[in-house]
């Protein structure tokens, strides 16, 4: 069996798509619905080979740390019409998996999609951590250290920070009126996840200071396609 780990670097080329939905749950903090739409055919090893889903399957394994909580083969079905933003081949021929996960065990829950071939001995299993596809609440800033200061290391696209025009390299001088040095990176990053964030930023290229008020929003990791 060949296990292919799926993350943000290779998700775009995988034979499946993943969607999450929190709207039907009483609280986003408690559970999330996952929808996985898999192409019934996997990438062939050789032309004419036919890596097919029916010779593999889909499996959900949940751990508590390193201890197994549960594991089972997940039943698939036709892709329902309510699915949006899914490529046409997946909508027409895809196999649809729907399951609900509590947020407490997302960190160590893995979903596997496996393909087999009648003429090739290997079974290809694509494995991904469900956490990869969970929406996060943030303003979309990743921080780094520059000397004794905290700087913006990365601005995630499609987030409140990118919409406000923030760019990597800006120095975070104050967070909610408090000197950022008093936070430290981890606390500052955690503080960006909830509510309204008041930032005072310095552009080191011209020494100008700017203030921005950002409201956190649900953002998705770039791994989703």
């Amino acid at each position: 069996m060949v296990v292919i780990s799926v993350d943000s670097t290779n998700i775009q080329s995988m034979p499946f798509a993943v969607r999450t939905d929190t709207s039907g749950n009483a609280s986003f903090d408690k559970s999330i619905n996952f929808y996985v739409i898999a192409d019934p055919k996997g990438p062939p090893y050789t032309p004419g080979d036919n890596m097919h889903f029916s010779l593999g399957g889909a499996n959900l394994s949940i751990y508590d740390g390193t201890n197994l909580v549960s594991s089972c083969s997940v039943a698939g079905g036709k892709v329902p019409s309510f699915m949006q933003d899914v490529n046409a081949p997946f909508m027409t021929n895809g196999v649809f998996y729907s399951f609900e996960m509590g947020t407490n065990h997302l960190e160590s829950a893995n979903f596997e999609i496996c393909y087999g071939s009648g003429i090739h001995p290997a079974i290809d299993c694509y494995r991904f951590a469900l956490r990869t596809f969970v929406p996060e609440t943030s303003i979309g800033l990743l921080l780094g250290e520059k000397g004794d200061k905290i700087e913006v290391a990365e601005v995630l696209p499609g987030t409140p920070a990118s919409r406000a025009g923030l760019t990597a390299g800006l120095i975070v001088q104050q967070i909610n009126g408090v000197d950022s040095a008093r936070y430290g990176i981890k606390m500052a990053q955690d503080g960006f996840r909830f509510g309204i964030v008041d930032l005072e930023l310095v552009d080191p290229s011209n020494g100008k200071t700017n203030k921005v008020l950002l409201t956190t929003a649900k953002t998705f990791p770039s791994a989703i396609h």
Partner: protein
Amino acid sequence: MNLKLIPCLALVLSGLFPALSAHAEMDTFQISPVNVSDSPISVQVTNMDSGEWFTVFYKTNETTTDKFLHANLQVSDGDKKISSVPVEKIWTTNGVEFEFMVSATYLTTSKFTITEPERCDRK
């Protein structure tokens, strides 16, 4: 779909084995060691290093169709839901098998449910 017309056969997993306690309400049947022999269900439990491996066999009849037969495994930690997953059907002679593993830690709060509409011979 009218849920009142759907009899459900529910297994409650408790203790180290499926100590199957039962009650019936409407068209829902909870399976226990006491009544499992009167049900279309048989259960095999194998103790593995990482948990209990369940093989549940559900005897089908001529009215059973793949389209309307469903099974779901719900694993919880106390009152917190860990997962709720439709379990794959493995069609065999005279019935369907379901396989899954649950850690002994979570057996008492986990539930496996088979749903089939209008199974009149089981009422």
